[in-house]
């Protein structure tokens, strides 16, 4: 146990802790790979199962987070490589008839980010959506901080080219 609030590894409390703390983050990260919520949820479940099967606690919360995110990325990539995915065609996403122009524009941005190559997409998502620092992202994806910075810059450049009217980093 590495903090007073973290539950003991392997207990029911620990299961609730990891579900509460990491479910949203992992599902959304997996979504950037597989582009559908059902597969993202399934992969996230596999990550949690792998976590319990690992059989030993982590040295720190940062170590735990990096391990979970990296495992989610790897399992998502494996999912995309599986024979099942290559042989199936996804159902068309139903357009929400109640979507307004604002929602559609936001979806355009998300589609643009999701269409980026994986190496740019992942760092963009971790940096802007999850708010991780470059050093944290470096530990998660296993690349040097300078490389992460370069990937972020190039990813932003690609997004600017894709977006009509430009792309602002400022909120």
């Amino acid at each position, binding site marked *: 146990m590495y903090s007073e609030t973290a539950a003991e590894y*392997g207990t029911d409390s620990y*299961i*609730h802790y990891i*579900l509460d703390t990491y*479910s949203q983050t992992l*599902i*959304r990260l997996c*979504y950037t790979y597989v*582009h559908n*919520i059902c597969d993202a*949820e399934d992969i*996230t*479940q596999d990550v*949690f*199962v*792998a976590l*319990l*099967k*690992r*059989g*030993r606690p982590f040295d720190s919360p940062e170590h735990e987070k990096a391990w979970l995110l*990296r*495992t989610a990325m*790897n*399992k998502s*990539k*494996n999912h*995309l*490589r*599986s*024979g099942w*995915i290559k042989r199936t065609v996804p159902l068309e996403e139903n357009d929400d008839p109640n979507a307004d122009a604002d929602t559609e*524009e*936001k*979806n*355009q*941005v*998300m589609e*643009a980010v999701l*269409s*980026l*190559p*994986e*190496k740019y997409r992942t760092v963009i*998502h971790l940096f*802007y*959506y999850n708010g991780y620092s470059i050093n944290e992202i470096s530990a998660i*994806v*296993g690349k040097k901080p300078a490389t992460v910075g370069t990937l972020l810059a190039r990813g932003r450049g*690609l*997004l600017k080219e894709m*977006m*009509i*009217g*430009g*792309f*602002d*980093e*400022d*909120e």
Partner: protein
Amino acid sequence: MKMSKSIKDYKDAMDNIKISDSFYKRTESLLTELPEIDIGKKPVISSGKITAFLSAAAACLIVAFGVKFAVDRGENITTVETEITESIETVIVAETASPIIESLSETEGDEMFEVAVNSDADQAAPTAHDAPAAHNNTSDTTAATSPTDPVKTKPQVSDNNAGAGSAGKTEASTTTTPAETSVSAETAPLLRDISYEHVTVEITPYFDMGSIKSGENPVKKKGEECKPIIEFIAGLTETSREISNYSFTSLFSMQIADESIGVTFYSIYVTDLNAVVITKHDVNGQVRETYAANSSDYEALKHILFLQFGTEDEYELFSSLISGK
């Protein structure tokens, strides 16, 4: 006039993705009902403290083992250690004489994964699909004809010259690689999806120690016997990060094949520096990925593989010699 897009739009769109209401409950049930036998019962050497203790104890074992050798054979301790050291040094020299392979490998870089992504799903990166495939084929072709790349050369010694001893290494450049003979019309299954009905795993050591000779007497496992090793490797690929360093020395190789169709799907090299190299061979070409295993997983894998050839007592010596080079 369209609003300019901002990262806030991305955040909002992501937040609007609806996670199913049942996810939490289903996952909670799944995790709480996991059989106890599945939780934390992997046969691994679990902590750095145990490894540190073994390293400290290894020093005493080296002295005891050396004295035993000297008493049994009438040789001095220095001679035994020199013999083992020389065989390892030979491997290292060969490893550094392959700058061409290293430079080609570096250019593959992070685009390795792009080879397998469905191009229909990722329209922004069409060029990434072709380049790594070309690089993979180029580098592997070069590796097949270069006698100085131990990662490719060593399997040739075991597959084609078993029992030929050191003479097998000089013939490596003229023989075909496992990669070339195993190109097939089949798609390699993921490690997790392998059917154990026809699978074989051939394990070959690449070091000399006592009765263990580099590249000789590989151990072949079939069917369910392969499961612990394959599942361990599969777990390692899911939890370890990929790296792009290709300078290392092989300790063991594993060829995973389907006996019923005579095709080798995976060549796996367990190397020094905690690295595991996995090359997949199938109709899509060859894809090589290198993983940096954490210390405990790496030690456990080395342990499992060494015990195919040596005893528990000999493992202590092997481990300390490898880590001490």
